[in-house]
């Protein structure tokens, strides 16, 4: 209330001083304004420009002839405002002055000028000390013009919006206000109505509560009704779904208008419409009610801030709604998930698998039957078939296979032939890689596909690479030494390595902040690391030096991952944007923007055509690498998502969040098809077994859990209707799907990896 008072006072004073339209005072005003603006981090007013002193009032006077009606409106609004605040004296003054001349009346510009000049005129009266303090206090006021500016049509906001696009425009949407005392009444009225409707509609309509509550609260706060806002919050925050508790906590801390500026949660709310899915019947019901009651306040909010996605058919049940809600901005619009996604795998290049005689012999020596051939054939035939759901082979240009890649593929196939078939009755063995003495804090782990190297990112900005095979890590010789090598020799690849540098581990220095994400390239020649310092670095695992620092995210980069085909990589960070990079470009190729909060994890689809990102806004988005479009928005998590995994066939995805739940998704339909409950803390690691029969999840709660995904995917009945509407009944079968829960020795699991033979590797730092 203090702010209002001071504001009013200032306006009043301004009005008194403002006999002549322009002059000395205004210049002062202008200076003052510029000052406050700079001190206010650019959230200043819309049209103050240092180049044109006095532009405020100029703008005002120039506008007033064009829109006397609007001025009238503004005046009325101000009068109303004053009355409500029992400032009868000012009302009188204003009336009198308005009666004398409407011309000099406030327009948005003069009001903002008033704010500044208030400070100025005060300063002449008071000492210098108070002046500076006052001007500091009145920092809030430059935003105030928006209050009066709102009724004025977009022209004004547009003109202001050019240099100050976001905050003010966004905030100004809250300027409409009714009587703050009525807010609880409105809300209560709606609550009563919704409680009284038929059960089938109630669940659906209840969705309205949360966004409505938030917007009403923000409106109250924005209009400086601090006390009312608090009361409102206290009265109704208890009604909201528990999974919004986190956001509510942030909201409850925000009780002043100036807090709204720069508050990300608040901006998220404003910049995006909260999406609700409501059946037509329920919607009609709501609409009729609001219209009957003439409840414009609520209707306005619904119109302005909510997006109601109306569908025909049966209203959804409470559990159906709960399964899908929880994200920062409501559910995904249905048409957001309509694009076709080519989730099939790319055809594997045909590689002649030479019959490795040595290996064969070795096998024979061990007395094992020659079973290799048929298996190999089956592999070959599999890759020859073109998946109808697969993207075109050349949809995304992929790097050509090098000889070494081919060799690796062959190795992979050989290994795969020895793979254990996992299933509910044949669980994998688990090996745990424990990071000991990681005082500096282990923040990320990755293991190469062939499980030969393990790397850790640490909070002390280092990246450490270990060899987990007896083969030690060696650096390539220096250029001078290299020139002495006989390049024709057969073992040139051996010869280039510097035997003296052989060691079990190497430390990579370069980052200047905790390393939050690391990823090996598929060919094991490179390592990516992303850090709090805002960069992604590419390291060579031949020379163990940094090759490139990719700068683009100017904020912490939470995660990065190489494409399964190499060359491309994706990164996502605090700037809410995921970026697609190619190793040989220092600038990103694609920017995937759309998340409303930090991008916390990024994963490539196995066919490299898509990128999935999980975010702190509690949604998962799938992006098309080809055109950068968002093709799927998946909602349902109730907390920031910290892990993602694609099934090896590319059809499904699993996601884990701070809420301790794993959700399974059908990418083709964009539907949630399973919910795996069991973890009690954030899930930081998810991985499908090599054949996709088992999903392993690792969590902060020091357990690894194995889930029967085969069964999970089978149990889902996907008829046309559910596929079309997206309303799925989730089977409540977490416990049946849980194949095993394995505790570690007080070691949070932060990475999981299935070897090519389906041995499960887990990694984490011992945390006594």
């Amino acid at each position, binding site marked *: 209330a*203090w702010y209002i008072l001071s504001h009013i006072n200032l306006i009043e004073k301004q009005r008194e001083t403002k006999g002549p339209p322009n002059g000395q005072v205004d210049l002062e005003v202008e200076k003052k304004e510029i000052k406050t603006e700079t001190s206010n981090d650019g959230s200043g007013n819309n049209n103050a420009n240092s180049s044109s002193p006095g532009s405020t009032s100029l703008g005002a006077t120039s506008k007033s002839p064009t829109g006397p009606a609007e001025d009238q409106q503004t005046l009325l609004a101000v009068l109303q405002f004053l009355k409500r605040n029992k400032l009868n004296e000012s009302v009188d003054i204003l009336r009198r002055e308005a009666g004398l001349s409407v011309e000099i009346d406030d327009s948005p510009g003069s009001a903002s000028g008033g704010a500044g000049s208030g400070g100025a005129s005060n300063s002449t009266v008071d000492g210098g000390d108070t002046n500076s*303090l006052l001007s500091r*206090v009145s920092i809030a006021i430059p935003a105030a013009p928006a209050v009066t500016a709102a009724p004025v049509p977009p022209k004004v906001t547009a003109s202001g919006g050019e240099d100050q696009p976001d905050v003010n425009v966004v905030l100004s949407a809250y300027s409409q206000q009714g009587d703050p005392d009525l807010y609880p009444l409105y809300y209560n009225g709606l609550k009563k109505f919704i409680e009284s409707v038929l059960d089938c509609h109630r669940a659906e309509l209840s969705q309205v509560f949360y966004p409505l509550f938030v917007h009403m609260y923000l409106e109250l706060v924005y209009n400086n009704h601090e006390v009312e806002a*608090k009361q409102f919050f*206290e009265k109704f925050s208890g009604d909201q779904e528990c999974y919004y508790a986190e956001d509510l906590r*942030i909201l409850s*801390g925000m*009780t*002043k208008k*100036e*807090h709204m500026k720069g*508050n990300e949660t608040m901006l998220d709310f404003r910049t995006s419409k909260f999406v609700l899915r409501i059946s037509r019947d329920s919607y009609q019901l709501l609409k009729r009610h609001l219209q009957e009651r003439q409840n414009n306040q609520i209707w306005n909010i619904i119109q302005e801030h909510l997006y109601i996605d109306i569908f025909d058919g049966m209203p959804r049940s409470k559990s159906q709604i709960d399964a899908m809600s929880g994200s920062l901005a409501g559910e995904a619009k249905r048409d957001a998930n309509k694009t076709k996604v080519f989730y099939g795998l790319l055809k594997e290049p045909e590689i002649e698998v030479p019959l490795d005689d040595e290996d064969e012999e070795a096998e024979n020596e061990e007395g094992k039957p020659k079973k290799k051939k048929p298996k190999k054939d089956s592999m070959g035939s599999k890759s020859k078939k073109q998946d109808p759901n697969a993207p075109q082979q050349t949809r995304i240009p992929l790097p050509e296979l090098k000889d070494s890649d081919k060799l690796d593929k062959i190795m992979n196939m050989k290994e795969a032939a020895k793979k254990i078939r996992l299933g509910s009755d*044949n*669980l*994998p*063995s*688990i*090996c*745990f*890689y*424990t*990071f*000991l*003495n*990681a*005082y500096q*804090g*282990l*923040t990320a782990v990755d293991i190469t596909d062939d499980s030969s190297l*393990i790397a*850790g990112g*640490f909070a002390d900005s280092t990246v*450490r690479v*270990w060899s*987990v095979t007896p083969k030690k890590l060696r650096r390539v010789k220096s250029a001078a030494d290299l020139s002495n090598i006989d390049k024709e020799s057969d073992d040139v690849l051996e010869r280039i390595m510097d035997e003296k540098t052989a060691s079990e*581990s190497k430390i990579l220095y370069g980052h200047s*902040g*905790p390393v*939050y994400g690391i990823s090996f390239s598929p060919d094991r020649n490179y390592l990516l690391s992303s850090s*709090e310092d805002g960069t992604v670095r590419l390291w060579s695992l031949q020379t163990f030096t940094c090759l490139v620092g990719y700068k683009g995210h100017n*904020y*912490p980069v*939470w995660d990065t991952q190489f494409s399964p085909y190499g060359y491309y990589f994706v990164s996502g960070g*605090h700037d809410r944007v995921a970026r697609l990079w190619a190793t040989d470009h220092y600038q990103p190729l694609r920017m995937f923007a759309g998340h409303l909060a*930090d991008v916390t994890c990024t994963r490539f689809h196995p066919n490299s055509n898509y990128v999935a990102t999980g975010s702190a806004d509690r949604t998962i988005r799938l992006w098309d690498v080809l055109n950068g479009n968002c093709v799927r928005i998946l909602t349902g998590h109730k907390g*920031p998502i*910290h892990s993602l995994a694609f099934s090896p066939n590319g059809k499904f995805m699993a996601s884990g969040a*701070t809420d301790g739940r794993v959700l399974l998704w059908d990418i083709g339909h964009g539907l949630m098809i399973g919910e795996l409950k069991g973890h009690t803390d*954030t899930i*930081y690691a998810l991985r499908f077994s090599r054949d996709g029969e088992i999903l392993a999840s690792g969590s*902060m709660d020091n357990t690894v859990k*194995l889930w029967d995904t085969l069964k999970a995917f089978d149990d889902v009945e996907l008829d046309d209707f559910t596929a079309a509407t997206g309303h799925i009944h989730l089977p409540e079968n977490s416990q049946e799907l849980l*194949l*095993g829960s*394995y505790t*570690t*020795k007080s070691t949070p699991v*932060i990475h999981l990896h299935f070897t090519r033979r389906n041995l499960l590797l*887990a990694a984490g730092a*011992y945390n006594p």
Partner: protein
Amino acid sequence: MADREERRFAEVPRESVKLMSESAGVELSDELAALLAEDVCYRLREATQSSSQFMRHAKRRKLTVEDFNRALRWSNVEAIAGYGAQDALPFRPIKEGELFFVEDREINLVELALATNIPKGCAETMVRVNVSYLDGKGNLEPQGTVPSAVQTLSEDLLKYYQQVTRAILGEDPHLMKVALLDLQSNSKMAALLPYFVYVISGVKSVSHDLEQLNRLLHMVKSLVQNPYLYLGSYVRSLVSSVMYCILEPLAASINPLNDHWTLRDYAALLLSHIFWTHGDLVSGLYHQILLSLQKVLSDPVRPLCSHYGAVVGLHALGWKAVERVLYPHLPAYWSNLQAVLDDYSVSNAQVKADGHKVYGAILVAVERLLKMKALSLSLPAERGFGAQPGSGGVAGFRVSSPGLSPPPEPLSEAALGIASHLQGPGGAGTPWEDWTPVPLPAMYCELYSFFGDSLAVRLSTGPSLGGCPPSPPGPAANPDTARKMPQLTANLNVSPRQDGSPRPEPAPPTLARSSSSSSIQRRNSSSRPGQRSVGPSRDVFPKARFPPPQAGPPAFSFLIGGRQTGRRCQGRRFQTSFSPAPPPSSAPPRTYAHKLPVIGRVGKPLRRWTCSHYSLHLPL
């Protein structure tokens, strides 16, 4: 601001803001300070919220200062320096006034830099793999056994560990001494601490072997005394091992030849040592110890040696612990003890001997309690108390050893205010909330009722005792006894009990030692005109300083027995009298007793008052 009801968040009061601004030389109006305070709160919340994401991405559960600083840095606020420690900083209150501060010990950099025992630093970060689960079944390694991480220690440390444990638990006493000394001063064995603690926790498995127990306790002592070790939460484990030695009916104590008493004494000493030096590492430790001691004490099923342990444990923890736990518990416990001491059967001999041990321990504890309490009272209350007649006795305490230097307490009638200091860290919610300190005189009276002269004698041997006029004949008359038990000098008249009932008694028992107890009982009942009410009035104490002159000839028998008064449990007095020359008749004391004003003695339950002759070989 002040009338804000909900306290959802930590808040910065405007007083703090004003204080800060004043220290920066700016005067703020209340209004402004309030606004600023509110804004500061909001900004703090904002920073905290954004700091949590750094914690999440670092895959930690604990929010660190570093996380917070990162959040500050990214919002272009200056980070806070100087709080980078990984461990939590202890937050301490100051006893006077409501001042709290983060403990920030000064570090002597020179010493640190020139130190020869440079800590070895962190061990190399490494990755170790083990097969945790084979085919998804079973744990190959049983959990919770000897920490498997031993293999991650360096060879040297491992060797050290083996040598030291072997030496300490081995046969060679010289080797043991050397090992213990090294354990006490070695600065590089921090990594081994868990293993030593684990070894020490093996006390339970060697409870039959006093020698081994002793060695383990020595190990504890060495660890505790090692200045380079940060015991952290291992204190708890150590304490529980020590407590085991104090409290448990060790297998070794079955054989009366084993001197487990010394072990318990030693363990109790150790406990107090741990508590006074490392007690701050574990919050609520004090109360936990007190609770478990109390539990043992109140459990009549426990053998006497456990009770003994509890008493010496309390004694070791300081007089406040005694006051807090033992003293209120004494009446209930007394009956059990007496029952034991009363049993003359041969089969009971051993138990009785144990009982004497407990009795002695209690006496020692209680006496110190009285002394220290009196001392704590007398120090600040010179003027008020000194004027009172009782000052003579009290002043004597001042001279006695200062002991654990209890904080000076203002003497107030209503509350002696000691409780507040007993509230250890995390003391809230303990079952002592309703505990109120008993004023010294009342306590003395009550204790006297239990211990009789054996207690009083000790207390009043202070030099200023001479101020008490009516007592002279005693020591002169019987120098022998006086020399033997110097404390037992003519304190008859200083007895706080006005009825003086205990005093006259001893004489007859020595005479009628073999006589029927029924007569004694009769006399007993007659000598007690009434039962004392539960709360003796406060003026009892001062008055007791002036026994009427007709108190009769001094009796040279002493009552070391106690008596149950005013308690529901069946009381019994056991007493020891030894008198070279019993007074000719017991009549004068009795008349004296009758003459005295009756102080709250209500004869509710009929009490036996048997006198018995005890040897003086009480383990005082």
